[in-house]
């Protein structure tokens, strides 16, 4: 499991209410495309928007759900399912998307992109 460690700055991307439960949005932060999801219980997750298998920036448009206790999103192109917490693909070994720190700050949703 990869834990995202914040070394950069937080960037606000939208109001918390803009996020629909169990759907995602795409955000562009320092040129990086990030998919941000809100699950049914209000928890936030951020992963890379690029589907590593198809190569297109579409992860934010996948269906959010669960597999066992794991919160998941399915690629809208070929339906591989990813763990929202770790970015790992649960259907194809060795495939993963990056994860990013994300938090709710008052009414705002903020993500952090590592600046090297």
């Amino acid at each position: 499991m990869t834990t995202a460690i914040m070394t950069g700055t937080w960037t606000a991307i939208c109001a918390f209410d803009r996020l629909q439960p169990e759907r995602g949005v795409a955000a562009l932060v320092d040129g990086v495309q990030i998919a941000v999801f809100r699950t049914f219980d209000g928890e936030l997750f951020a992963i890379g928007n690029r589907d590593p298998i198809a190569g297109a920036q579409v992860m934010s448009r996948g269906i959010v759900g669960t597999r066992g206790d794991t919160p998941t999103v399915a690629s809208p192109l070929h339906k591989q399912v990813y763990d929202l917490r770790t970015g790992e693909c649960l259907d194809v070994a060795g495939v993963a998307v990056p994860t990013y720190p994300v938090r709710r700050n008052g009414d705002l949703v903020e993500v952090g992109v590592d600046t090297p």
Partner: protein
Amino acid sequence: MTKRLVVAGYGMVAQRFLEAFAERAVPGWSVTVLAEEDRPAYDRVRLSAWFDDYDASALHLGGAPDGVAVRLNECVTGIDRERKVVRSASGETPYDALVLATGSRAFVPPIAGADLPGVFVYRTLDDLAALRDWAAADGKRVGAVLGGGLLGLEAANALKMLGITTHVVEFAPRLMPLQVDEGGGAVLRRHIEALGVTVHTGRGCAGLEGGDDGVTRMLFNDGGTLDVDVVVVAAGIRPRDELAEPAGLARGPRGGFAVDASCATADPAVWAIGECAALAVDSGDGVCYGLVAPGYAMAEVVADRLTGGDAAMTRPDTSTKLKLLGVDVASFGTPFAEGLDVVVTDQVTGVYAKLLLTDDAQTLLGGILVGDAAAYPTLRASLGGPLPAPPLALLAPAGEGGVKTELPGSAQVCSCHAVTKDHITDAIAGGCTDVPGLKACTKAGTGCGSCVPLLKQLLAAGGVAQSKALCEHFTYSRQELFDIIRVRGIRSFSELVREHGTGRGCDICKPAIASILAGLNNGYILDGEEAALQDTNDHFLANIQRDGTYSVVPRIPGGEITPDKLIVIGEVARDFGLYTKITGGQRIDLFGARVEQLPEIWHRLVDAGFESGHAYGKALRTVKSCVGSTWCRYGVQDSVGMAIELELRYRGLRAPHKLKSAVSGCARECAEARSKDFGIIATEKGWNLYVAGNGGFRPRHADLFLTDATTEELIRTIDRFLMYYIRTADRLQRTSTWLEAMDGGLDHLREVIVDDALGLCEELDAQMARHVGSYADEWRATLQDPQRLARFVSFVNAPGTPDPDITFEVERGQKIPAKGPVPVTLGGAS
């Protein structure tokens, strides 16, 4: 560096090989197929079915997997093994591995007159077309088939269907000498003669006479003669190994490329599979097998070897089951060996059965069945082991409940694909719930199909009822969930999953339940919680493409469109830079729209009077039509008017899968209605309705359901057909597989929706009335609602910025996704 795999020959076994190779998804290979015939592989085993409707597409085997380069009409003429290239008309093609799958040719014995016009062989679709053209001409009345084996009897059937008085000439003392014994041959002969075919056994053909106008007479080797107008030679096959000698490759004792148990020739870069391979196993001589199952096994072996495996052939099972002129014939194991036999002959019903057991009567060695082959799957699976029941009980006509079988786990259930009972029970335990599911995950039943009854028994024995589960979140089937939602009046996914499921759903159950909710509540699909259930296509009311852009398809009911509207589509495409393509459903698909462009595009389209075409939904797609009586000199009804009426009636109807329809204005069927979920063909007196057809991956001709119906009767029946389908089908089950899986099939469907045997019709009618009454265009509704529009942005924090990763290039004057680095494709997830 990429390695080059070249396949010579594109028949059934090559097809199997390409699929098996693609499934293993090993990177680093480029695959090229050189095919002598002018079409991709087709089902030669079912070749004779072409005479049913002359529809070659029904025999198509699914085509080559993605990425395979197929060169049709290009015969391999030589192999240079030193330089590792094959030669063909267009030059040389280099290989790192070469797979020969050239099959067999029909053997024509050296008799005088064999080259006369009117003398045919029976091997390819072209052979059959030539035979039909000749035999259908005026004045062709009598035909002879040389050879009374499997091929000969199929050819005899073809001649009969062409209206020819048919004779079969067989040198051996009985029909099908290779498969059946004397007793079986005698019963078979009586069946064939009862069909009006004259059988000559123990007689040979000594020559054919005739001239430029064709064959006229056949001479028998006993001095007799027969006047004939057409002759089919079905005297056996010979492997196509003409490439062997010039390339210095060894041949088997009776021809064929000599290969070992790994299917490799003496040259480790050259392999041979299928009928052209002379396979030596267990230090025996090389033998060519004229059946498809051993060929499929060889295809798997070579696919495995090329991808690092070490699979090997064992001696192939040559069991066969055939239906010849309507008569079941099966032979399995070694029916001619020494042992104890059990023989049943019933002259009254024309049934013959023989089982051969070891001397201690413990082990089944083989057998022959003629007239009734119901016991074949069970018997074949029991070969080499004890019988699952006393012999006579097994051979008795299939009684109530079928035979109580307890096959050992290692028994082969599907011999075409070497699938054992253990494989099947594992697949059932792993969640396979029906025959199509088993076919998909084990391949069992996808060859000759004779094991399908056994699959059904194993499913029943596996207690499949409990594994109807839609996914891990619901233990119910789609049909059960439909009933729960309807009866309990459930209105949201949260409510359903809380009370009847676990977790928070997934990409399988969410869209399925969204579709049920949409069907029952008939609401706008992007409202409230339902919005989160839709997959991306339904969420953005457009079809996602490989690069993350969408395509837009406005509805063009019946394919009828005014010039003004055509111009609007053209202008929109030009202004937004969209790639345009005419679809098979008689409308226009506009590709390459970014998500943030969709509302503007639709604004223009809706203003011009267009509405959503639902190309993105599991819903009615189109009702195609021909021009019908309005313009066509043959048309007997207004097919366009009917198509428009139906398309407007059922537009937006959410279903377990997409729905397609078509209306033809007369029996010439230019709209291809019989390949649709519901197809209508005009008659002099009204309309014929066909249901549950399919094109696509597994084509199926629709079944005739109503004849000469009035418009009112027609629409009422389609209403009920669709609503019954929506209510009872599984997730992603097309009408064709739904009907095939239905207990009682077409008759049951008729009882429910015509005779109202379940008392359901009133409710089905009311549901359809509600759908028709509450239909509203989703795109118009979306454009009117700022909240709904809010989701159509590229980035929440930069709504106007296009996705910088989407780039295009130009091909044939239109833009297409930039090819860029080729994405990795992986198997695994569905």
